[in-house]
């Protein structure tokens, strides 16, 4: 079957989708967006977390057909998504095609970060930059899911308590860091967000 949906602000279609296929499989194997990770396939680890119409979900548990006509944000589109949110016109008021992240750009996405030589900022959302600055990334496998989950929490809860952070990230497993630096990164992003206001 064919699935029409919006991925990172751009209309996309996927063909020859098997009816029992997950949204995660479509994103990774048909859209060529491997940022969302495939690990447990049972909603246990959160590494496939994406936004479905704004809500964080495990994409491994969404049937591809259920994504028909809906809006998906993946980690590849997070920087652009955060930028538009900060400019307070998410989606509206942008010339068509000028916002969102094209498939091509998303497929080529590499972590930029702030270049230590030139001081130029690459394309990162504030939460991504905070993860790098706090040393919250080790093997990196759980990172995309954590970024999407943490970014969503900060969107509606700008000054989270530690308990809020723990709860918001309770569905994301990390086997490297012991979570402390991840919590540091989210606190850092929250503090920077507050400063910016």
């Amino acid at each position, binding site marked *: *079957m064919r699935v029409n949906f919006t991925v990172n602000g751009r209309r996309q279609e996927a063909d020859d989708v*098997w*009816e*029992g296929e*997950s949204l995660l499989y479509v994103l990774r194997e048909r859209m060529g967006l491997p940022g969302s990770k495939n690990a447990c*396939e*049972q*909603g*246990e680890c*959160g590494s496939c*977390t994406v936004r479905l119409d704004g*809500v*964080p*979900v*495990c994409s*491994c*548990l*969404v*049937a591809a*057909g*259920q994504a*028909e006509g809906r809006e998906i944000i993946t980690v590849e589109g997070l920087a652009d998504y955060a930028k538009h949110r900060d400019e307070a016109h998410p989606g509206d008021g942008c010339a068509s095609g000028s916002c969102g992240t094209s498939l091509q750009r998303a497929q080529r996405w590499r972590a930029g970060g702030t270049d230590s030589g030139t001081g130029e900022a690459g394309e990162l959302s504030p939460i991504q930059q905070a993860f790098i600055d706090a040393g919250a990334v080790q093997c990196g496998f759980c990172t995309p899911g954590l970024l999407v*989950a943490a970014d969503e929490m900060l969107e509606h809860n700008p000054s989270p308590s530690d308990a809020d952070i723990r*709860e*918001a990230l*309770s*569905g*994301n497993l990390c086997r490297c860091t012991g979570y402390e630096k991840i919590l540091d990164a989210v606190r850092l992003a929250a503090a920077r967000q507050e400063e910016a206001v």
Partner: protein
Amino acid sequence: MDFLRPASWEEALAAKAEHPTAVPIAGGTDVMVEINFDHRRPEYLLDLNRIGELRDWVVGEENVELGASVPYTHIMEHLRAELPGLALASHTVASPQIRNRGGVGGNLGTASPAGDAHPALLAAGAEVEVESVRGARRIPIDAFYTGVKRNALAPDELIKSVHIKKADGPQQYSKVGTRNAMVIAVCAFGLALHPETRTVRTGIGSAAPTPVRARDAETFLNAALDEGGFWDSGKIITPSVAKQFADLVAGACNPIDDVRGTAKYRRHAVGIMARRQLGWTWEQYRTDGGGTGRTLEGAA
């Protein structure tokens, strides 16, 4: 496999009548796991996400009619005062990502003895509204669970909503697991005080082939509270009464040994939860008068 996408409830009922083997999928948190792991290859998947009314709820005089697909997140956020036990139970479901997708209809459809909503529904009192092209009917929650992962649905029926009694007194819910998230209950217990009828109701999860009420424990406690004049005096429940109640609740369990825990442990833990919850709810009843909406909210 065919993917059926009804745009309305009527279309969904027609599709289910035409294809009784179709597996309904809403949040997908059970069904997709089985498909991902090749444990299930349904001929038809029946997507219920496009039916908006399944995500609505109506707060009535006596009941809340909760659409089958209302995500647990919404129950936690919007129905804490009306359904404190279910709100607490909802907060223990898996993780935020899962709570954003899963709902009570899925718990009922799967009918696992470990489903988190069941003890809260049993304790509050509820009826499951199911429908087919032949018509609609309401199944009392006590008659809904018919066996391990079996329920009273006919092959052509779909779960539309659950009519849950609004709390008229304190309610509690707790579950045993290895951490506070992503846990399938080792065992669970829910308790609701119903001051209007001067009764208590219970629900036990994951400690019998189906979710069950501890009826002997309820009967004992109802009589003890009545005879001792506790509802009027609001005095502290005698420890021997609480112990007897807990023992009878433990006795209502019919658990098995499995990877999550032994039968002995489950029976013991359910008894402990029963005694503690009786203490918590009774304390709330006697200090708040038990009747005001504000103080009935679950701690979720």
